């Protein structure tokens, strides 16, 4: 690999002169960028580095020698020996002239415009001392209601079309368009009523003036009066950088912006998201200031379990927790405690949590929401490459020549990684998408639409699709050089050769030729990444499927090669952090194994205390143990098993059986309602810390406002209970926790470049080699089996495949408390193919009854028709607990990883008559 790197072609460069200064830039660079490199500012409105040049505003005119007219520097590429004059009188006058035109119809409402103070039109008018020469009648657009979230003020529009171009070129949503002609051009949207789109907020952010604005904080602020805090998003694991614009005096987050560089918002954004955000990131911040936030501890009245929850002082609540914990520990020992944390918490809170459980309570039973599926991928990746972190980066996806996306509706689950995949596809990369979803044109982007090869497999058949690809690679003799002779690969070939093409075809619903063609493309690619998500990591055989993907990559030399590898997507922002902080029963902070003496010893030395030996119980085991009376107390930090798991998982019964339950959360959850003590926690906006995104990048979380009155950061609460229990874990502040983590494990510091930061870990290639030699054949026949029953019912027999999964606009408790997101969608629907809807005679919004094909119970749900779903498949967004569709699901425990699998079911649909 290293050899090929050194023969990289040297980029051709071009020398030119701008305002008498020479500069050398890569061929193809635009004049405006070459000038920026020299620090020569050329003003512009319509240009944006994320977008193709349109050259419409004409503000960036420069004089180029030997060219007859002034040239727009945003559209002219440099050429050798070019001589540019960016600031002559002629040029300055031309810019002033353009400003005259733009100001002609621009209203003088800067004092009430939310863009005032961060508006390039204001700034350039000042700089070029342009003032209104226009003495005619101004153009007035009729006010139009655009959307509950986005305010459109067309009178301010300068028709640069950045919003329309962004929506198309970056988001691939195409929800916006210019309508009418000439002087009367305005920004419009498709559809008759209000805007329907992805609500990424990109149009608002990219608008250079105040024509498109966020309606949620409209007229509530002047930009310069807000305090701006750079932090990391708390929704999904994409790990976007964003800025909380807040009013610290009132402890209010007013709005979110992202890093589009300077005040004119015109350069590539910073952060893993390069400035792009999704609906949750941009419009989902109000949960912080939700009136439903818990602001006082709650305890059972008079300590009676059947008493109501009543408000209590922090002293009273903490004392009570310490007392009960002490009593139970004294009577039953540490094993009597079970603890679950949410992977939404910061690394610091998670670290203190597991330390508290392990040392103060003395329990090995600590687990977290990574158990819902992330551990499948983390375990498999650790075996395959020695680290749970990604080997490829987001940049590798963008620069790949092939991206294989499978098991994820990426726009909904991880929209920003979705943008990376789109960018790769738009640059000409091959895009193989394994998805039962059909292509569909709407104003929501859909990755299947961009696929160069769509493997439209049966729902739930992801594993068999990948098995088919492994088989095809081996059959074609396309295994990477030197691999074929290896005994483990020979064994793999033997195993897959026993699977017939017919079996694969009937299990996947695909032709074997299509799978073979995909395998061929995959093999031929040189920079290729597999991006996969919830339908693999949270599904049946999740761990096995990730290993099969690993086998596919390994076979073709793409597991650890530069720019290649596996890229699992996670739902919660800090799943990687929770895993790395040891909030799983078998791992310690820093990824050490609990049952590995040297690993234990290292952590024990740092903590100066013995760590209880395991193995501790995993989530579902803990709940069972609680029901059986073996676990007597449960500590739930941000985790809500009652609201998340289907009723059949028995979480509610577990909580009821336990003697003492503590729920520590932002809101009173279904779990909190069953707790003995509820402790109000501070949100991510109210504390410092770090999140680790799915790639394994540790990123800063910064305090924008002081904790909402009455709430406290998790680590502080834990520390206070510890003190009360006479086993102090004292920290002055969050930073002290960070330092302790960093001492124990230097990889957990912001800005780390991924796996390379993990000390003592072998190179991934070495780990992969070891996997191939020692582990590949382990459980191979189980992994590569095709069950005869592995067929999904077709709707013809009246049964449907119900899938529960993520929705772009919601993620659960936080999103349901965010006004903005609720304005986009405040209730769930059962999404159904138009063919099926027609068969049932149900229209949009009408209800059907959903019944489990295997168990009791039924619910009524309203239908939304969406052609993306194939006949026979229905989808329900998992973030909504009402109606209780999830209770129709049964839980299957993954033997290898103890992941509770419950995202799909076979259901019967009945029309309500």
């Amino acid at each position, binding site marked *: 690999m290293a050899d090929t790197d050194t023969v990289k072609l040297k980029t051709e460069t071009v020398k030119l002169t701008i305002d008498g200064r020479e500069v050398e830039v890569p061929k193809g660079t635009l004049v405006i960028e070459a000038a920026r490199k020299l620090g020569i500012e050329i003003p512009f409105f319509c240009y944006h580095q994320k977008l193709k040049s349109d050259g419409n505003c004409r503000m960036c005119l420069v004089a180029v020698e030997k060219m007859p007219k002034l040239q727009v520097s945003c559209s002219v590429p440099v050429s050798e020996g070019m001589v540019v004059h960016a600031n002559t009188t002629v040029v300055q006058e031309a810019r002033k002239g353009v400003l005259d035109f733009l100001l002609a119809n621009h209203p003088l409402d800067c004092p009430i415009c939310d863009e005032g103070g961060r508006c390039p039109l204001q700034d350039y008018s000042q700089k070029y001392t342009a003032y209104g020469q226009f003495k005619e009648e101004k153009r007035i657009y009729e006010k139009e209601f655009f959307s509950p979230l986005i305010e459109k003020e067309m009178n301010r529009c300068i028709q640069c079309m950045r919003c329309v171009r962004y929506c198309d070129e970056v988001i691939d949503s195409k929800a916006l368009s210019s309508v009418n002609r*000439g002087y009367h051009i305005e920004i419009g949207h498709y559809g008759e009523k209000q805007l329907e789109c992805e609500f990424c907020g990109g149009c608002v952010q990219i608008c250079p003036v105040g024509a498109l604005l966020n309606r949620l904080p409209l007229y509530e602020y002047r930009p310069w009066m807000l305090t701006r805090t750079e932090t990391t998003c708390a929704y999904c694991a994409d790990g976007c950088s964003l800025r909380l614009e807040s009013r610290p005096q009132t402890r209010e987050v007013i709005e979110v912006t992202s890093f589009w560089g300077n005040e004119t918002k015109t350069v590539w954004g910073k952060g893993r998201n390069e400035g792009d955000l999704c609906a949750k990131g941009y419009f989902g911040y109000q949960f912080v200031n939700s009136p439903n936030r818990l602001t006082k501890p709650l305890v059972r009245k008079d300590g009676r379990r059947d008493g109501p929850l009543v408000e209590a002082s922090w002293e009273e609540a903490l004392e009570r927790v310490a007392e009960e914990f002490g009593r139970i520990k004294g009577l039953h020992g540490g094993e009597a405690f079970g603890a679950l944390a949410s992977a939404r918490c910061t690394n610091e809170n998670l670290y203190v949590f597991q330390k508290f459980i392990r040392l103060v309570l003395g329990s090995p039973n600590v687990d977290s929401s990574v158990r819902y599926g992330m551990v499948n991928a983390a375990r498999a990746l650790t075996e395959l490459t020695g680290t749970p972190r990604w080997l490829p980066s987001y940049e590798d996806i963008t620069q790949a020549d092939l991206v294989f996306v499978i098991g994820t509706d990426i726009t909904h689950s991880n929209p920003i990684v979705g943008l990376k995949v789109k960018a790769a596809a738009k640059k000409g990369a091959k895009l193989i998408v394994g998805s039962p979803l059909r292509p569909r044109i709407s104003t929501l982007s859909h990755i299947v639409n961009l696929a160069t090869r769509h493997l439209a497999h049966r729902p739930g058949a992801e594993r068999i699709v990948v098995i088919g690809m492994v088989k095809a690679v081996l059959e074609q003799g396309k295994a990477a050089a030197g691999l074929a002779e290896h005994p483990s690969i020979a064994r793999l070939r033997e195993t897959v050769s026993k699977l017939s093409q017919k079996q694969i075809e009937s299990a996947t619903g695909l032709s074997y030729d299509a799978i073979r063609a995909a395998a061929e493309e995959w093999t031929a690619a040189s920079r290729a990444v597999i991006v996969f998500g919830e339908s693999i990591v949270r599904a049946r055989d999740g761990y096995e499927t990730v290993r099969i993907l690993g086998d596919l990559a390994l076979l073709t030399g793409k597991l650890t090669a530069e720019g290649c590898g596996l890229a699992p997507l996670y739902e919660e922002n800090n799943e990687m952090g929770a895993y790395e902080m040891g909030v799983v029963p078998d791992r310690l902070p820093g990824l050490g194994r609990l049952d590995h003496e040297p690993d234990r010893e290292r952590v024990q030395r740092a903590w100066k205390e013995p760590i209880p030996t395991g193995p501790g119980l995993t989530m579902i085991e803990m709940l069972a143990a609680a029901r059986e009376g073996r676990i007597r107390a449960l500590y739930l930090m941000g985790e809500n098993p009652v609201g998340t798991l289907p009723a059949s998982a028995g979480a509610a019964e577990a909580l009821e059986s336990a003697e003492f339950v503590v729920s520590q959360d932002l809101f009173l959850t279904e779990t909190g309602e069953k707790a003995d003590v509820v402790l109000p926690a501070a949100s991510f906006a109210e504390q410092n810390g770090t999140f680790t995104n799915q790639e394994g990048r540790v990123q800063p979380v910064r305090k924008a406002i002081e904790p909402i009155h009455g709430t406290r950061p998790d680590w502080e609460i834990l520390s206070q209970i510890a003190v009360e229990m006479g086993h102090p874990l004292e920290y002055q502040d969050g930073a002290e926790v960070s330092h302790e983590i960093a001492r124990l494990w230097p990889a957990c510091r912001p800005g780390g470049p991924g796996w390379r930061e993990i000390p003592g870990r072998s190179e991934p290639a070495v780990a992969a080699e070891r996997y191939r030699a020692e582990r590949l054949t382990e459980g191979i026949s189980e992994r590569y089996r095709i069950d005869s029953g592995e067929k999904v019912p077709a709707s013809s027999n009246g049964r449907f495949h119900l899938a529960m999964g993520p929705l772009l606009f919601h993620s659960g408790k936080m999103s349901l408390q965010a006004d903005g997101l609720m304005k986009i969608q405040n209730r769930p629907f059962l999404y159904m193919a138009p063919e099926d809807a027609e068969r049932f005679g149900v229209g949009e919004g009408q209800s059907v009854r959903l019944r489990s094909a295997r168990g009791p119970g039924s619910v009524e749900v309203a239908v939304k028709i969406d052609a993306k779903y194939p006949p026979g498949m229905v989808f329900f967004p998992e973030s909504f607990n009402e109606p209780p569709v999830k209770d129709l699901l049964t839980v299957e425990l993954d033997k290898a990883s103890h992941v509770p699998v419950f995202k799909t079911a076979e259901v019967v649909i009945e029309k309500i008559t």
Partner: protein
Amino acid sequence: MKYEKVLHKNLETPGYTGSLADYERQGGYQAIRKALKEYAPTQLIDLVKRSGLRGRGGAGFPAGTKWDFLPKDPALTRYLCCNADESEPGTFKDRELIERDPHQLIEGMILAAYAIGAKVAYIYIRGEFVYGAQVLERALAEANRAGYLGKKILKSGTDIEIYLHRGAGAYICGEETALLESIEGKRGLPRNKPPFPAIHGLYGKPTVINNVETLSNLPHIVNRGVEWFTSIGSPPKSPGMRIFSVSGHVNRPGNYEVPMGITLRELIHEQAGGVLGNKKIKAIIPGGASAAFLTESSLDVKMDFESIAQVGSMLGSGGVTVMDEDTCMVSAALNLMEFFAHETCGKCSPCREGSSWLVQMMRRIEHGHGRMEDLDQLVRICNNIGGKTVCAFGDAEIAPILSTLKHWRSEYEYHIKEKKCLVGNRGGQLLTIGKH
């Protein structure tokens, strides 16, 4: 003086219907037979280059040179587009060629497509030309049936298909890159150049866009040879015939096919029958609404590209509009400015905002609400538009105001000072109509 008709020969033949049979009877479709047999595509390009045929759409760019800009790589798909979006006020020559002799155009397109190696060609026809579109559809069907179009035309190895694409009523789609966008199904907005269509045209492929009249010349050049073509008109730089659409205050408005280089005086007084009511000529637009106004003193200028350019206007689309001595120049300039303000596509700030700004000011002046400083402001706005836009529309729209201000500034001043019009039947009347 009478001239031998070339492009108008068929359609001025009594009883000629424009059908395939009529066209063949007049010797039609012989040029492609000859070209396919005698010329390799490069030779045909060379022939047209040597003929000196210049574009009849407006810019007058040499057709053969344009063809020669295409990349030579034979593997590349290329397209030919016929610009039949004739929308220039005062111009109606293409319409007659389309409606009355469609096969002449189709034969010309076949020749051009063969020369540049295009297997697919489009005719982009102005949306309002409903009848013309019907005629062309019929003619294309006839040509397909007769084997002039389709796979292996005339049993040669050449495939050429022609599709008719109707516009939807935007003047800007006559601008060649906006035309391409429109064929692609997008808003008809001009593209930034470079890259030029020869490199990155329709669907990103090398593309040639030629005007109806330009293409209609090709069969004649092939049939009668370069020497014939370069001997007529105003060689060496403006050879060939030219169809002028003469309108305005003349006795016989209409299309006149004459050799390039006859004088304006001959065109107006001999061909078009002189000025209505024998009045004096005040102004002439020599080449469509985008061309600067000329005064009577230019009547002896030769109607060829160079001569017209020398007097500060352009031959353009060949639309000649004559205005007599009673025409108010403020009103005439306003009239055209209103057209341009209505037709600006709105892409570039100067043109989008400037055109309506100019209209509002011109309306004030026309209606007697002008101020003396408006005149300098008009010039300033025009200069801020000219040369500052993506396409030539910006340069075109300022021509009427700048040229009328140059030649008839006194009329503007009279409107402002006296609030009266200097000329015509409004002469001396107060102009305080409209608001302000």
